[in-house]
């Protein structure tokens, strides 16, 4: 079997779509806040893959610049989000996503 067909950008976009969907379903289904956060990271990575595919298809570095910014913002978001999760779980160990109203007041 000769794999002579090269991957077109569409293949990468479909892979990114599947990854995005898996991440989205993961956010909806899991209840541990850290695992929900990891599923959000999956979605961000799917978007990064789409950006790089478009940068290559359109021959435009703006796609790669967008990935750069997404990486930086994702890092900042993870830092703040984990701070919130630490504050939450210190109060009540074993909290899940159903207990997030604890930070009220």
């Amino acid at each position: 079997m000769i794999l002579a067909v090269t991957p077109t950008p569409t293949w990468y976009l479909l892979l990114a779509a599947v990854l995005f969907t898996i991440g989205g379903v993961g956010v909806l289904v899991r209840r541990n806040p850290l695992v929900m956060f990891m599923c959000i990271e999956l979605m961000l990575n799917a978007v990064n893959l789409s950006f790089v595919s478009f940068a290559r298809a359109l021959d435009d570095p703006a796609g790669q610049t967008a990935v750069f910014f997404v990486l930086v913002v994702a890092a900042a978001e993870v830092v703040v989000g984990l701070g919130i999760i630490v504050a939450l779980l210190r109060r009540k160990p074993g909290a899940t996503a159903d207990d997030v109203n604890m930070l009220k007041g």
Partner: protein
Amino acid sequence: METVVFIVAAVMVIGGALGVVLRPNPVHCALSLVLTLFGIAVLFIAQDANFLAAVQVIVYAGAIVVLFLFVIMLLGVDKVENLEIDELRGQRPLAAALGVAALGLIVITVFAAGGRRITGQHSVSGTLSGGEPDINVLAHSLFSDYVFAFELTSLLLVIAVVATVLLARRPRPRRRPTEDVAERDEVRQ
């Protein structure tokens, strides 16, 4: 050759993603996330985005996942989640249906666009298929077209670090302002 790389990396990406969603132990989920991130980095290299692949491995797999593992170990939340219970009734079938619908929507959009992918003005910072390495072109684009956004993201990082230090601080025990000040000064001497 690129097809083989694509298939292997796609298996890594999808396998890692399913591992994150399906494993009950959060530490296993973090390790599956690392597998996905490495698969994405391989796909970046296959698409000539070498600098981004390096940054992805350093920042995502090297810093963000390590942060996740720190927090998991710090808080001791690595006890296994019970995946059998479904708190909201009908949540899982509904999530699966929404996932299939979203995937269908994205796939239809990808195929409906066809070859017409030009959406705006081409960047003036050069092209990726010219002779220059991708990091040069990316730097040209970042520091000329998007320098304002670049400065704002630096500010954002500082704000995020300060905010997290404040959030994760242990609350100090409340001290009554009158008598304890004298006692505290005695103890200090």
